[in-house]
């Protein structure tokens, strides 16, 4: 792959170049890293919207409806990254989110990429953030990121997205206890999808009363965001305009409150931190004389040295 040429082509809007670049980035290859470096200055423009929630609540259907709405009403390019689980036994994955994204299938202003989680547990793959970065650099102004519908700890999406939508559906258990702990911490907007089905009011009421407890005393404070609770019927395109409005209000809130910059800074700092660690370990491994590790390990196993002492011994080799 001619990396500078690919970077230029991506900036020009060449979809094949982007698709191939995304593969490199997804696989965390040297070419992928170089591509991201070359395009880094172009990024940081897109509004990153996370879409999370239990399996089958309608995440993909909502992504489809929202993206189609943005395409109809604004002149923006929309990127979609949809993550599905990898089978822990075979390493394979069935990526089925496109089934619900028919309206986007042939729109030249939309780019949909499916990703397998590849063993990562936080609802995204390890390289999802990098994939999103490349789409951002390619000029996609809104990027919707659908997480694995695992219903576990979706903290990864909060770290990546500016605005996180948590999708609920009626009938999953309508009392407060049944609504997963932790969703209030991650939701910027709560959506009760499948509002055509019985039990919407109950789900809505439960969410509202949880929110009231959580945000009591902050009503009317312009520096404090209280997540709205919205209804939608994604399969019939209902409630989508109000959702888009809420997303826009949240974006304005982030920008006005300085939170946008803070999140950006926290994300880049986190990325730098991880990279420094990786590079240090790599440099250390390269500087390590053959057998040094094995010898230290043996000393440790025979209890001639403690783990702490062993680590100190091995770290000496970084001083070249």
């Amino acid at each position, binding site marked *: 792959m001619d990396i500078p040429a690919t970077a230029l082509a991506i900036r020009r809007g060449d979809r094949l170049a982007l698709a191939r670049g995304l593969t490199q980035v997804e*696989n965390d290859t040297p070419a992928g890293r170089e591509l991201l470096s070359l395009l880094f200055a172009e990024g940081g423009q897109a509004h990153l919207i996370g879409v999370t929630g239990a399996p089958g609540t309608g995440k993909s259907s909502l992504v489809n409806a929202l993206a189609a709405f943005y395409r109809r009403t604004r002149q923006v390019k929309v990127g979609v990254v949809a993550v599905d689980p990898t089978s822990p036994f075979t390493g394979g994955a069935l990526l089925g989110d*496109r089934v619900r994204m028919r309206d986007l299938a042939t729109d030249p202003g939309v780019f949909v990429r499916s990703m397998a989680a590849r063993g990562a547990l936080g609802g995204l793959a390890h390289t999802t953030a990098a994939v999103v970065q490349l789409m951002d650099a390619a000029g996609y102004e809104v990027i919707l990121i659908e997480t694995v519908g695992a219903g576990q700890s979706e903290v990864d999406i909060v770290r990546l997205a500016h605005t996180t939508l948590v999708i609920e559906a009626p009938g999953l258990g309508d009392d407060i206890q049944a609504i997963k702990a932790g969703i209030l911490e991650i939701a910027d907007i709560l959506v009760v999808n499948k509002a055509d089905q019985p039990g919407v009011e109950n789900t809505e009421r439960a969410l509202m009363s949880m929110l009231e407890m959580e945000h009591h005393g902050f009503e009317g404070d312009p520096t404090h965001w209280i997540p709205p609770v919205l209804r939608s019927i994604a399969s019939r395109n209902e409630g989508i305009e109000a959702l888009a409005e809420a997303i826009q209000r949240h974006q304005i809130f982030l920008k006005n409150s300085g939170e946008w910059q803070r999140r950006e800074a926290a994300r880049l700092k986190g990325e730098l931190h991880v990279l420094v660690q990786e590079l240090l370990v790599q440099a250390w491994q390269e500087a390590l004389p053959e057998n040094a590790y094995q010898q230290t390990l043996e000393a440790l196993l025979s209890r001639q040295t403690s783990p702490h002492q062993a680590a100190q011994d091995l770290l000496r080799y970084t001083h070249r």
Partner: protein
Amino acid sequence: MAERKIRVIIAKPGLDGHDRGAKVVAQALRDAGMEVIYTGLRQTPEMIAQAALQEDVDAVGMSILSGAHLALVPRVIDLLRANGQKDVAVFVGGIIPEADVPELHKMGVFAVYGPGTNTQTVVAEVQKAAAARLAE
């Protein structure tokens, strides 16, 4: 650096509404460790080619029961080529008359699978075709 997974699209072009066969093949490929993008029923050739492009797949499999294979398959292959994806391996499954098989091969289809095909055969051949692409 992660290993490069084989990525395959399983698509269901045309108007017939049966996707059992397509799903069985998709699952077999997944169980063999591939990442399989499933796009659902009634896909137009344009939709299939766009999905193949955006997903940067190594192979495209189409399940066709409607008898429209001689119209649909060349259209998809033309679009793949027009998009710069000449090297993507294309295979077809479904109800395909014996007499049409050579014609499909001539169009660039690497394999045609009838209803009774062992999924392990499909897995092995897709692996081989994708490996040839990845080696380039």
